[in-house]
């Protein structure tokens, strides 16, 4: 490559109004997107805060009632000394998914998946389906977040900047002149590309830092910078993919207009068409089981359990041999509730498991299918980095299910033993704490898309370079 060509290109680019205009436009879009992401992030944080206050208020009211009775035990003990009343009716524990440090950069699936569950002593299917209030129109349109700017808009800008990379030089007759001055075609192309790649990197870095600062990420935290490093690598690879694609399309020696049309079509294919087809493939291969069927079957089971209450109770006694003989201590009403719950759960849990199995299979298909389109890879990687991808929520639900066992156990043990709630026992109720998946899992998850993207870049750039060996200068 020729240093002087590079220097020349660099100067030209720095003074090119189109590049500046696009940079400013991207900056504005990024600022708006970061602002949106932050607003949403804060909304979620507010909800979390209100849930915690709500639960604390409920629990301390119950605890106070019990404590007052303990200090002055006159008359019947209040209803809230019954573990059944507390665990099956009055108290619920909010299991909350903490926000990841870069959550504001990609909304991902966080607007359709629950970020908290209200765990009770009833079976898990009773609280797993709770939803947040939203305007479905807004959810359908999706969010104007930084990930959207990256996945959808960055390619358009890169195409706008590079679709006539070589064809313009040729159409203006510059190419012939340059070659006549003794610069090799290869050197000329490499210099042009390096200058542009450097500029694209700079622009992306500025956009990334702006987004990071505006979303209020903790700049002193190593976890933030580790994630930002991954974020930047993915975004840069994606930008280079589009750049390499433009280079490749230019190598076919067509007029600028044709290059523009071809690249617009390729954008459509990678960003719109392939994802839409991929979705159809995933949902056709592993369709979600019917929620309608789930509804009717669980209803059937509940009704049956109520009709055959005695049978359900017997089955429950059979499963809990510690109860028999000494059942007088336990509250018959709550034993009946638990028995009915257990009967419904026997029907519900295999059905619910079917949902999980299908969801996991679908997720695996998506992880394979993503390699067909860089746009899907990048969206998945950005969701992973922000902790808003499907697998993140599946992990959350799995952890909550496990926790539910502990929480429920706390109350059912007491109900079965006929042991009342004491003021102190309220402090022993298990509390959910989310175990965030380690940086290793995150890096491993992002590795696939990164390798995929790198391959796309190498193949595209390689094919372009080979093609340029046959590029007619005049």
């Amino acid at each position, binding site marked *: 490559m020729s240093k002087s060509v590079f220097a020349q290109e660099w100067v030209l680019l720095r003074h090119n109004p189109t590049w500046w205009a696009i940079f400013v436009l991207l900056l504005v879009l990024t600022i708006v997107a970061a602002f*949106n992401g932050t*607003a*949403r992030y804060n*909304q979620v944080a507010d909800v979390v805060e*209100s849930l915690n206050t709500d639960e604390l208020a409920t629990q301390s009211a119950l605890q106070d009632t019990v404590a007052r009775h303990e200090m002055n035990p006159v008359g019947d003990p209040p209803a809230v000394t019954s573990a059944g009343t507390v665990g099956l009716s009055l108290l619920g524990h909010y299991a909350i998914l903490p926000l990841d440090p870069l959550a504001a950069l990609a909304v991902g*699936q966080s607007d*359709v998946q629950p970020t908290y569950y209200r765990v009770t002593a009833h079976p898990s299917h009773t609280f797993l*389906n709770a*939803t947040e*209030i*939203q*305007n*479905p*129109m*807004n*959810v*359908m*349109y*999706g969010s*104007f977040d930084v990930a*959207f700017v990256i996945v*959808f*808009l960055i390619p*358009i800008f890169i195409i*706008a900047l590079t679709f*006539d990379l070589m064809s313009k030089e040729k159409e203006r007759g510059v190419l012939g002149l340059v070659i006549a001055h003794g610069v090799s075609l290869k050197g000329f192309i490499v210099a042009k590309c390096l200058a542009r790649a450097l500029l694209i990197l700079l622009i992306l870095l500025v956009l990334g830092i702006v987004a990071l600062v505006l979303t209020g990420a903790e700049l002193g935290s190593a976890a933030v910078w580790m994630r930002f490093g991954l974020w930047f690598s993915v975004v840069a690879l994606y930008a280079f993919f589009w750049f390499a694609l433009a280079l490749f399309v230019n190598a076919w020696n067509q007029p600028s*207009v*044709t290059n*523009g*049309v071809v690249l*617009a*079509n390729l954008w*459509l294919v990678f*960003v*719109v068409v392939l*994802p*839409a087809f991929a*979705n*159809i493939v*995933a*949902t*056709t291969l592993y369709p*979600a089981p*019917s929620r*309608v*069927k789930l*509804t*009717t079957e669980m*209803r*059937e089971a509940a*009704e049956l359990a109520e*009709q055959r209450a005695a049978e359900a109770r017997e089955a429950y006694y059979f499963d809990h041999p510690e109860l028999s003989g000494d059942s007088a201590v336990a509250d018959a009403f709550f034993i009946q509730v638990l028995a009915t719950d257990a009967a419904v759960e026997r029907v519900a849990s295999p059905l619910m498991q079917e*949902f999980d199995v*299908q969801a996991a299979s679908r*997720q695996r298909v*998506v992880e394979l*299918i993503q390699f067909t389109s860089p*746009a*899907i890879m990048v*969206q998945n990687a950005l969701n992973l980095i922000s902790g808003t991808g499907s697998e993140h929520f599946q992990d959350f639900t799995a952890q909550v299910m496990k926790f539910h066992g502990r929480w429920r156990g706390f109350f059912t043990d007491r109900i079965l033993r006929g042991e009342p709630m004491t003021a102190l026992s309220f402090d022993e109720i298990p509390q959910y704490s989310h175990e965030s998946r380690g940086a290793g899992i995150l890096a491993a998850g992002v590795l696939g898309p990164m390798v995929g993207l790198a391959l796309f870049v190498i193949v595209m750039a390689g094919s372009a370079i080979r093609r340029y060996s046959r590029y007619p200068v005049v």
Partner: protein
Amino acid sequence: MILTVARKVFTEVMRDGRIKWSAAIFAVMLLVAMATAAQRYVDISVERDSAQEVVNEQWRAQGEKNPHAAAHYGVYAFKPVTPLSFFDTGITSYTGVSVWLEAHNQNDAEGEPARDATAIARFGELTAAFTLQMLLPLLIILLAFPAFAGERENGTLRQVLSMQVAPHQLLFGMALGAAGAVAVFIIPILIVGLLALIVSPVGLVFLGHGAIMIAVYLIYGLIFLFLTLAVSATARTAKAALVAMVGFWAVSSFVFPRAAADLARLVYPTPTAVAFQQGIAGDMEMGLDGVSPDAAIRDLTERTLSLYRATTVAQLPINIQGMIFDLQEEFGAKVFDKHYSQLYSTLDAQRGIHEMFSVLSPRMAVQMASMELAGTSLDHHLFFTRQAEGYRRSLIKKMNNAITFNSEAGQANYRAGSELWGQVEPFKYEYPTLMSSLTRLGPSFMIMFLWLGVSIVTGLLAVRKLKVMVG
């Protein structure tokens, strides 16, 4: 003259290899979208209908119990799917499909399909509507952008203008030629779609919707066609025309909808589920307009006693418990109506923002119309939930009346049987009429016609200037 120009443009377009690729992608997407969606429509409608049957049967066969226990058991209402939903799925992935109708509570629809989808679903679902909204404009842009600008670059524009062609003849001729080329790809597919609609079970009811839908997409295509021609006539080079139109398409189709959604959420936030439920629970406990529910029950008891000139409820010829349930239900209805109407007015305000943005984005105006006509809009969803709620209230009232008139005071062990359950008509959803949909669409139609008018006028102005510029 218009026909001569049209024929020339048509022939040119059909020969252009670049267009063939775009058109092929377009046609394949449209076909795949319609075929998979038609299959899904059949599956879903069979499933929902049979689920409704099952639930109705469960209700009838629930055995002997107190009517209030039956009211707690309740029924489910399943949202039926319209045959046009295979064309445009609208918001259906993001709304629940069934509502549990039980005593005391107005429940929200549950089981939204989006919960079971992966992140790629968010790129957009492949439906015929999505293809037409996103790809049809691009196809039109790609085949119409060189119309004037290309001729100018080749130097043939001057010759064309030197012939006796009026500017408007040139514009409409080119538009006709390009539209003809697009029609070659679309009309066969649309005919297949219409036939599928006609043979579907309730298809004939929606034939009018389908016809208007086609008109909507025709207008949409024309908007982009005339805009592209206008830009092509104005732009210095074909390249500039292409960049400008693709930019407009990308921003108006992809950026504005998301911007509208975020702005709507920000300006008119919906309450969180917890706050919403707390608001309802608070009113249920404290009562509306200062009268606590307990006081209202005491008042009702006293009034009833004096009406029958009785001193204790045991002397009443009716069971006052049923009346109390009824009172609670009516009170609950007031509380729900208060909170849900607040929520609905927030959603309506958000819709206002979406409509505002559709002034900038023809796609959003068309999408609103398309969803509404397909029966997959938010309005349709709320229409369904309201109907389900109305059904719930009448069902619970029947149960409470049975307690009041068929059982004696204090008779907790009263049991009703299949005779009472059979008196409850099964839930049957009545679709909103086409007229009501069209009324709702007033603003969207106005915006679409505005766009069409503006694009034709700018086209005419641009070709008129063309003459001056070259001559």
